[in-house]
């Protein structure tokens, strides 16, 4: 694959470490910043990104240009606004943003600068999860270098635009990745999601207009501005623009992450890039885009990994990082593990989520341990429907938690029945 076809990761060299400011510039970095700050109006940057068909890479897939378009237009000098990078990567099975931040932190810095210019935000914040120690060191280093080079600070390139970045090191909790919970956490409160409206674009951090974009989303921006929206849109295979970092974990020969055209078929990702299943293991089912996406089985292998195609198959592209369930691992045990995670990570604000998810976990516990009853399946099914319907809970946490459960109850009905009839797990996960 040529350099131009994997813009996000081309500069990443795990042996040499991240490029410093000079190496980043030699490889084409800061070119987009020169173009934007010298020749483009902020609204033109928004327009270019809209035309590139970039959609949010954090999981929800909202159009990036469209998201920005709701921000009030005043210049940064006249109104306090925030551009926030969501670097709270905590979706189980997802390891793409860490790769980007450790491998090329200046790319994120430049992406943030471009996004901030587009929405005219003077303040940048990277909301980084506390466990990402190496990323923190490298981001701090990159920000210091960018300041030294004049790419951050006052009156960047003599454009009159000023912008700087602060790294907020968080201290855990999955819900902080939800954009309104993230804002609440930044304000020094328990990270409870907020009701919308007001949307962050008009009333976000400390009440100021704010945009929260994922690390991978932001890292695309320098390439879109440098090479144009048509180039970026053309990188995708289907309706979406650009490349996507796809990943596979589980019992495959080569677990990993790869930057590929968005819309690459799932089969190609698993069989060619991940090398197929390990000897002695067969593919049973998979979560295509992280823990909060619905299971699909091998009949979905030929789907394109773009937003619409995965939705058509009954799941979500999510983070694009697939988790494989093999035929020697218990699906009930896997669901129990997943629901333990979601129950633990509920922020506790709304009752259905706070009380419903632990109940689901306990039912799965019982079924796995051999004390489950036939009625438990109905109870799980009711929870999957009740908690899975958006609007029944305060945010998308519970619906996300129910996606693997609802699909799993259908796909693994036989396994559930066997657990209940046989009073325990026939596969006893102990490999």
């Amino acid at each position, binding site marked *: 694959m040529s350099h131009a076809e994997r813009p996000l990761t081309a500069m990443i060299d795990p042996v040499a470490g991240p490029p410093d400011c000079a190496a980043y510039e030699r490889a084409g970095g800061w070119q987009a910043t020169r173009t934007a700050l010298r020749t483009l109006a902020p609204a033109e940057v928004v327009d270019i990104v809209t035309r590139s068909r970039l959609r949010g890479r954090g999981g929800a897939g909202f159009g990036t240009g469209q998201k920005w378009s709701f921000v009030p237009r005043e210049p940064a000098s006249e109104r306090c606004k925030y551009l926030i990078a969501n670097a709270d990567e*905590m979706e189980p*099975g997802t390891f793409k943003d860490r790769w980007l931040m450790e491998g090329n932190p200046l790319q994120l810095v430049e992406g943030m600068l471009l996004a901030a210019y587009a929405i005219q935000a003077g303040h940048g914040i990277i909301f980084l999860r506390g466990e990402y120690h190496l990323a923190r060191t490298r981001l701090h280093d990159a920000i210091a270098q960018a300041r030294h080079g004049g790419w951050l600070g006052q009156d960047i390139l003599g454009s009159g635009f000023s912008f700087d970045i602060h790294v907020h090191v968080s201290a855990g909790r999955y819900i902080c990745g939800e954009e309104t919970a993230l804002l609440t956490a930044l*304000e020094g409160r328990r990270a409870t999601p907020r009701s919308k409206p007001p949307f962050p674009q008009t009333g976000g951090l400390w009440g100021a207009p704010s945009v929260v974009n994922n690390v991978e989303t932001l890292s695309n921006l320098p390439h879109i501005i440098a090479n144009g929206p048509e180039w970026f849109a053309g990188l995708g295979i289907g309706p979406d623009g650009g490349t996507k970092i796809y990943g596979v974990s589980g019992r495959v020969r080569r677990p990993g992450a790869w930057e590929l055209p968005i819309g690459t078929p799932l089969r190609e990702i698993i069989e060619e890039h991940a090398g197929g299943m390990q000897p002695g293991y067969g593919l049973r089912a998979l979560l295509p885009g992280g823990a909060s996406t619905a299971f699909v089985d091998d009949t979905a292998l030929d789907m394109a990994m773009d937003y619409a195609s995965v939705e058509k198959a009954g799941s979500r592209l999510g983070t694009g990082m697939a988790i494989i369930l093999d035929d020697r691992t218990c699906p009930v045990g896997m669901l129990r*593990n997943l629901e333990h995670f979601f129950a633990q990570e509920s922020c506790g604000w709304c009752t259905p989520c706070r009380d419903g998810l632990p109940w689901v976990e306990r039912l799965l516990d019982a079924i796995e341990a051999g004390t489950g009853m036939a009625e438990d399946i109905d109870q799980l099914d009711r929870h999957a429907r009740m908690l899975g319907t958006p609007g029944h809970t305060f945010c998308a946490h519970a619906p996300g938690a129910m996606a693997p459960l609802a699909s799993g109850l259908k796909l693994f009905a036989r396994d559930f029945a066997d657990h209940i009839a046989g009073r325990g797990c026939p596969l006893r996960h102990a490999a």
Partner: protein
Amino acid sequence: MSIAEQPLSGDLRAEIRALAQAEPHPRGASVAALRLVQAHMGWISTPHLNEVADVLGMSAADLDGIATYFNLLFRRPVGRHVIMLCDSVSCWIMGRERLCAHLCRTLDIQPGQTTADDAITFLPIVCLGHCDHAPAMLVDDTLYGDVDTPTLDHLIDTLREPPP
């Protein structure tokens, strides 16, 4: 008097004040201030929490609501080293339960506890973003992948060496 009961140093209080001043509202520095105390003290004792609340102009209960919300902020003492073994789905598929049992046996503690010699606290942790090298764990600030029992045994020996 143990270190947990001694007042924070003047330098540390000044650092917390600087963090608060850099925010539009002092409470925005809550997590950063608590992390700072923990970095110096190992954990956040109630007297220290009260001091931070005082500097930030918050009630102790309000700040404790934050301290107890975030799992990486410790409101109880921990050992000299903290082992966090991922318990999320990819690591579970790749055999983290076996490693968890091995750690419990070797350290003679359950997850959430500290060894009798105060050397090691063992905690479960959510996905560490190292799923292509599952099972993964974090030991203090260092990320480990493809963890197996020999790696664990070697590491525990190293961590148990008494502090200089």
